[in-house]
């Protein structure tokens, strides 16, 4: 293979809005306390839905308090989340995109599973349910899948490559990987990237009900009594830079995004494959120049479905061999729910928190041992321990796998 010069990629800012509250700090604090944000579904149609629980962004989140009144009408809920999280990330990074032409050298890559679902659902209801004659004129600009990426680009004058990445539940990790590769290979010096999702609409909830993968009580990853996933929503957005760029401006580095791995199972549209997931984990280790024994923590995909948790356990064993028994593995979906296209981004906040604070967040609601899930899942209580390097797994329907490898700030 020809040698290509590559650059190291670091994370200098993060922002989040999640069921655990507004801000990356609120999310991380909740996770390390083992606090689950899963609760009764708040929805205008809750009475006739079979879905009973969800992990939702608190009602106290008021987009109007954070986003200017000229932009607000242009936004679906997904973009409200993304823009707000981006503002926090940019502020934390302290980066000035207007200085030295950085805006033209900055990419915006945002993952989302379905994009403007709330807008789609509202307009469908008007047209098909109420026989309205016209759709709202801003329907298209709100619902287009790239809306979040475009709104972030516009807000900060970011003129490099900008687009959405969609791979269902792995969207955020695929987006973050795409952004990191652009910096690594010199196509951009910085990137604003992450994932956003807000799809708890009547139509989407009915579709999930029909698939029979939702838990009716709570999310219990790796527990023998697990009954499926619990849907969530939210966004997390990050500022990535090349290491030299971050150093040249004296930025505080949160973590190094040291390696990435992507693979496709090319087998079943919904049933996961351990081999596909293991291949992505191995790639992430290789690119990061890490040995399995260098990893202390894996933030698992851990959806709480019967199929995922067993397969992911097998995949970790395939990729890590004997070191698998020394790993701390947890699923924070037990607390923030499954935010689909945003989930990898919310989980990156957890991975960074673990590296920085030397604390592994727990798997909540894990109370019955499953013989087929035989790793150390850090049940119910966070663990203080040295964390040198971390993997964060995302696997999607469609058999798509995307894994991030992180190291402590260099």
């Amino acid at each position: 293979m020809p040698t290509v010069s590559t650059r190291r990629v670091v994370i200098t800012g993060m922002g989040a809005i999640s069921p655990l509250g507004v801000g990356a700090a609120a999310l991380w604090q909740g996770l390390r306390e083992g606090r689950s944000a899963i609760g009764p579904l708040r929805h205008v149609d809750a009475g006739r839905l079979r879905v009973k629980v969800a992990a939702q962004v608190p009602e106290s989140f008021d987009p109007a308090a954070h986003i200017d009144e000229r932009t607000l009408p242009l936004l679906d809920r997904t973009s409200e989340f993304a823009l707000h999280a981006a503002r926090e990330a940019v502020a934390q990074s302290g980066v000035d995109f207007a200085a030295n032409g950085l805006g033209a050298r900055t990419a915006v890559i945002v993952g989302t599973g379905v994009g403007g679902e709330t807008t789609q659902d509202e307009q469908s209801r008007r047209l098909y349910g109420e026989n309205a004659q016209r759709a709202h004129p801003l329907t298209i600009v709100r619902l287009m899948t790239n809306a979040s990426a475009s709104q972030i680009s516009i807000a900060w004058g970011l003129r490099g490559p900008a687009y959405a990445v969609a791979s269902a539940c792995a969207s955020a990790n695929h987006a973050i990987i795409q952004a990191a590769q652009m910096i690594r290979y010199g196509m951009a010096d910085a990137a604003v990237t992450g994932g956003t999702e807000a799809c708890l609409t009547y139509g989407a909830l009915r579709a999930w009900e029909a698939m029979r993968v939702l838990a009716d009580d709570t999310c219990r990853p790796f527990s023998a009594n697990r009954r499926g996933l619990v849907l969530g929503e939210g966004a997390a957005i990050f500022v990535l830079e090349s290491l030299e760029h971050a150093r040249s401006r004296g930025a505080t580095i949160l973590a190094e995004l040291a390696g990435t791995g992507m693979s496709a199972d090319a087998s079943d549209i919904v049933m996961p494959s351990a081999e596909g997931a293991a291949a992505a984990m191995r790639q992430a280790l290789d690119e990061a120049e890490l040995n399995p024994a260098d990893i202390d923590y894996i933030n698992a995909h851990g959806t709480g479905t019967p199929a995922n948790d067993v397969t992911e356990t097998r995949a970790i064993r395939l990729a890590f061999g004997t070191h698998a028994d020394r790993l701390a593995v947890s699923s924070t979906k037990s607390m923030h729910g499954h935010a689909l296209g945003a989930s990898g981004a919310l989980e990156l906040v957890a991975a960074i928190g673990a590296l920085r604070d030397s604390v592994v967040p727990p798997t909540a609601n894990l109370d019955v041992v499953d013989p087929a899930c035989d790793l150390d899942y850090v049940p119910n209580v966070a663990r203080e321990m040295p964390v040198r390097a971390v993997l964060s797994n995302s696997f999607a329907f469609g058999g798509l796998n995307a894994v991030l490898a992180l190291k402590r700030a260099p």
Partner: protein
Amino acid sequence: MTATIQQQVFEIIAKQAKIEVATIRPESTLKDLGIASLEAIEMIFDIEEHFNINFPDQQGANFDTDTAQSLVDAVQKALADKTATDEGSK
């Protein structure tokens, strides 16, 4: 009555599995009939639509190992529950 429901359920199974109805025996598991998990979920949907019933959510996960007869039983139970509910609301 029972035979009729069984016949209807078997026809839905046969359609999903793309096999002759006559090849389905009550003790055949969905796996025996070559029905994978996603097809099983689609079949449950077809049965729910056909009889206008709802199966309990968690039933979906077990159908891989369940038999054709257990589907018929589940339909009969759901129909009985529905009748009871309808009577109760009168």
